[in-house]
């Protein structure tokens, strides 16, 4: 049996060794805020935090998480970034948005006043096909407003 700490709660699960974290979150625990868009670590939609570090959950095996605390978008619902994204219209279809906000939360935790270039560097791994990028940048630059 595997113990995972997710958004502050402890879950005991019986999982095959090849089960990626993203599928555990979505299918076994019903935490569908974490999206899977490519399933091979190219797009960032499945980003979660492991001890605060943005991690691609679709290519992270659940059994490798160990004691690290998993934070998903469900654990960030009260984060000011949510309001910043909605205020600036930093989402269109919204499928990449939870992953964007998870990545951005790690950035602003480490660097509360990032520059434009720092935002672009930190967020370049989160693809948005609708092209909400200018407003994602604005949301992160103004997240405390």
């Amino acid at each position, binding site marked *: 049996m595997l113990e995972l700490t997710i958004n502050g709660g402890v879950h005991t699960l019986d999982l095959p060794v090849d089960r990626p974290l993203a599928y555990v979150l979505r299918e076994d625990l019903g935490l569908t805020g974490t999206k899977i868009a490519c399933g091979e670590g*190219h797009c960032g939609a499945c980003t979660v935090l492991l001890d605060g570090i943005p991690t691609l959950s679709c290519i992270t095996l659940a059994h490798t998480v160990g004691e690290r605390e998993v934070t998903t978008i469900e654990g960030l619902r009260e984060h000011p970034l949510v309001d910043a994204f909605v205020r600036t219209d930093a989402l269109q279809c919204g499928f990449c948005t939870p992953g964007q906000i998870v990545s951005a939360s790690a950035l602003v935790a480490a660097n509360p006043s990032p520059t434009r270039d720092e935002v672009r560097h930190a967020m370049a791994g989160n693809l948005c096909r609708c092209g*909400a990028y200018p407003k994602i940048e604005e949301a992160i630059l103004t997240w405390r407003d």
Partner: protein
Amino acid sequence: MARLIRTEKEVEGRFTEQWIVVEEDALDQWPAGPRTVVGQPTRRVDGVERATGAAVYTADVQLPGMLHAAVLRSPHARARLVRLDLDAVRAAPGVRAVIGPDDLDVLTSEPCYEGHGVAAVAADSFEAARAALELAAPEWEVLEPLLDPEEAVRRESLLAEPRRHDRGDFDRGLAAADVVVQAEYRTQTLLHNPLETHQSVCHWEGDTLVLYTSTQNIWGVRDEVADAFGLPHDGVRVICRFMGGGFGAKNDAGDYTLVAAELARRTGRPVRCALTRREENVVSGNRNATIQRLTAAARSDGTLTALGGEFVSALGWDGWLGPTAGPMQMLYACANVRTVEYGAKLNLPPMAAFRAPGFVEGTFGLECLLDELAARLELDPLELRRRNHADSDGTDDRPYTSKNLMECYRRAETHWERRHEVRARSEGPWKRGVGMASQIWYGGGGPPSYAWIRVGSDGRAVVVTAMQDIGTGTRTAMAQIAAEELGVPLEHVRVEIGDSARGPYSVISGGSSTTPSMGPAVRSAAADVKRQILEIAAQRFHLEERVLDLKGGNVVSADGGSWSLEEVTGLLEDAQILGKGARGPNPTGMRVMTFGAQVAEVAVDVETGEVRVERVAAIHDVGRIVNPLGASSQVEGGIIQAIGHALSEERLDDPATGLVLTQTLDAYKVPTIADVPEIVTELVDVPDEHLTNLGSKGLGEPPIIPTAAAIANAIRDATGADVRSLPITREELLHALEAAREQERRGAAAPA
């Protein structure tokens, strides 16, 4: 009263004549400019739901006992199945049902493109389904594929009759010209890559098929699947509350939906069939590649005397011939135009509509050619466009319902003027330049589209219509329109969409038609509700209806009386006010089009061929703007996709086998946040007075149309190189620079 009218219906440039039942649309348009709610920058009403991951997309639908399907797809562009062991698949662990080429029309034993469906399996998990398919061990007789579009035209392997347009006298136009330019342009195959892949979950409730699907076209999917299974149309209930992007690729049911429905029927359990990203990039549709051989002829003052083009579209095995010649036929005034369009049928995956299909490709060629012409004429490119402004539709002389392209040009001037300063910032190998391009496109929408609104005793309104929101902010725009008409705060309006069993017919989310089609229907329904509220108030307060109005959440009378809306609706108790509205017809004999112009600034490293887009200014004329915040997002998104089209995106096919090489989001390069330039959006925001009760046109597609040409023209301005093929990779650009140097050398060597 319902009226039956014969009308022209347009979706993405495809016109059909059809009978349509419409209702009276007697409402006057609101005056131009921002209103209390409409025209105000407005947050998405479903923004928090989406941002927090609470919104349930098709990908998130999990039903009890749900099985997972996988599809065996052809690994060859053209082949014949010699052997297939479906019994081994059936015997595999976790397998609940297997279907093969004889079981469903979308499965075949003679695949004609890579990814063509052959067999499918439903199993307890997706992994079990995939593992089972491995046991099918297909043996193939591999056949020679037809991959070259020009060869297909020669062999008459076409998906449609060649489409010819010939007006005036092209040859006389050529003869009358002082300058003639000719060039061949090429655009590449592009992939939509919405982040939610194409997928459906199907289950049967008795004789009803309940179908969750990621779609732009709830009603089209309903009819297509019902017909395939021999069901009455409402025997299929289509549900799509949230969907993760489409860009034109999700207009049809798709093989995955039919596979899921059939496997659900056979197993009696819910079945999910979801494309993987790699399947998505092979079989879910594409913007087809084009070859365009173009001619433009003009007198020395810039007046166009002839435009001509031969367009070859590499459509793949199936699809339709987009209006690639449309911009040449319509963007400028020119009496003599001759175009021919060929749609090549190839052993490549079928095309699908992709955000302004045809016009994106055709505008790249035409607008680059126009700049080559301007250079030969030594005329300012913006001035050349002004001199050839079309006052009416060149194809049939119809007047436009509204056209403010000259105003777009006027507003573009500020950005265009920057070119001197931008060029002056060239430094070392980095050359800078500015280019522009214009845009014309459809986007008028039309009937039919319907909305219902109900108001209960609490005075809150619910808009009900079975439309989908692909991410353009449809819920928000509809809530704004209803709130405006009812004179209530936005928060007092809910919008319930996304379920064919719970609301009336709505238009497809495509062809920039959602706001212009659905907006007037919602306003019409709100007006119906308002009328009823005022009738009730008149009786309650013993006043005449004509002295009453709804404003700021109150019923107000001309003599200064004011009662809260709840005071009136409170009389209802369990009763409800039900309003219905329909989209009225477009004016007959007129053409509804959208217009715009964009100015791009680029920096080009002439040593490495690197191109950086530094700034794009976009000015578009799409009638009344309902939500300026959402509108600017649409413009930015369109431009960013177009930058990918221009510089980095390309589906690469193996020229020998016809197999797709770019199947991942690593290989197929969509823009990232680091690729985005400064984007300046300006919207003319003048309501189209001929366009029913709202005056709004669509904005989803116009912004993606002129960007690639504006970038290529900026590169020419910066370097003198004519880039005629997309994407403008470093290799492509270095070739163009070399060609420009070669031409200069030959020019210098030639006798004066």
